[in-house]
Structures are given as C-alpha cells and as structure tokens.
C-alpha cells in the first residue's frame, strides 16, 4: 500500500520523530511504499545537520538520512515552517540573505502543496506529533 507520514514535532523533545522512524522502517520491511515523509511545525527541525547528540544516544537526523538513502525516500521539509524556525538549504539561504545553511543530507525544502499531494496520492496518511 502507498503510505505517507507527517511529523509535527522536532527531534528529542518529543517522541514523534522516533515513532515515525520506527513506523516507516516497519512499513518498508512489510513491502509498503512510502510516498513521502513530510516535516511540518517543529518537525522541520529534524532536518538540521548541525545536531550532535550524546554518543550513547541515537542521532535522529542521521537515522532519517540513512533510511532515505537506503530506500530512496522523499523527505520534505515545509518551506514556510522552516523559514520560521531557521532551517535553510543553499537556495533558501541565498534568497533570504543568510550566511550559511543547515539542511541535512537527504532532506529537501518544498511547499505545503507537497503535503496535500501526499494526501491525495497516498492511501493512508499517518501523523506523529505532540
């Protein structure tokens, strides 16, 4: 079945991004297709490459990057939510006149239309938040 995932909270503060990761892995193992993982609200903060969690804990962003590489996942960070919270890719940094960017490998920044498209295209939308 074709599934999409929505993540509404940032990494570590809430379990949402962890639960979404475990769910996505299990869905892939069962042979389902993940059409898209959309990061909204504070969920956009999952997409920073600047995080350095303690060595004995998981690195949520790197887990998503690795999963995306292994399964060619489409990880989309909402542009409007990302602007509010300071998640930038090279393009956005240029457009906003910022002197750097922090988007992690495997994530792309795009519009809310991508969430609606996921809703239309997927047979199920599963939401993880606070």
């Amino acid at each position, binding site marked *: 079945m074709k599934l999409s995932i929505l993540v509404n909270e940032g990494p570590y503060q809430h*379990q949402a991004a962890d639960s979404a990761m475990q769910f996505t892995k299990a869905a892939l193992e069962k042979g389902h297709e993940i059409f898209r993982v959309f990061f909204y609200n504070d969920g956009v903060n999952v997409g920073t490459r600047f995080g350095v969690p303690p060595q004995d804990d998981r690195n949520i962003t790197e887990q998503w990057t690795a999963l995306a590489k292994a399964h060619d996942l489409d990880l989309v960070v909402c542009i409007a939510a990302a602007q509010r919270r300071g998640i930038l890719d090279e393009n956005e940094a240029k457009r906003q006149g910022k002197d750097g960017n922090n988007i992690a490998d495997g994530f792309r920044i795009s519009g809310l239309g991508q969430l609606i498209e996921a809703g239309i295209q997927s047979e199920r939308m599963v939401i993880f938040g606070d």
Partner: protein
Amino acid sequence: MAMLHTVNKSPFERRALDSALRHAVKGAGILLIEDGVYAAFDGTVVSAKVKAALTDHKIYVLGPDVNARGMTEKNVIDGLEVVDYGGFVDLVTEYDKVQAWL
C-alpha cells in the same frame, strides 16, 4: 472497515483519549502509542474507562512503548491486543483511515 484512532497522550494528564473515545463510532479501532500506553494498564484510575470502551472498540497498544515504560504484557488490561511496529503498520492498512488525536 471504520477508522483507526491513535492516542499518544497520557490519560492522566491530557484529555486526548476521552476525545477519541467520544468520537469513535462502533467498530472503530483505538491504538495507544507513546505516552498513550499508560491507558492500557490494569489497576489504575482510568482502567475502568478503557475496559468499558472494549464493548464498542478493539483497543490495541504498542508493545515497544509498553516495555520502554517498564511494563509488560502482564500489566495490560485483558482484551487489549499488544502489537509491535509491524502490527501498527498492519492496523493502518486494515482500517480505512487513521486519525491522530494529538
């Protein structure tokens, strides 16, 4: 098949479970995840409410979240079904749609 309602909030602190139960039609499923799993345990002040809901609903609880919180299947109210993440995925596909009571 009806809807699957996911609840991820502690029933002692938030009203998400109450809201979910108030809006779940007969036959709808309830899946307890994250801090929502605290509703699944027997011997608490919310156990009676959950047992009563079993009349109209299948209620599931996510095992990995149960174990993380120091509990096991033995603590879970009789009649609830413990599932793993694979089971969570199966429920999502078996029910018609999913509604998250954030």
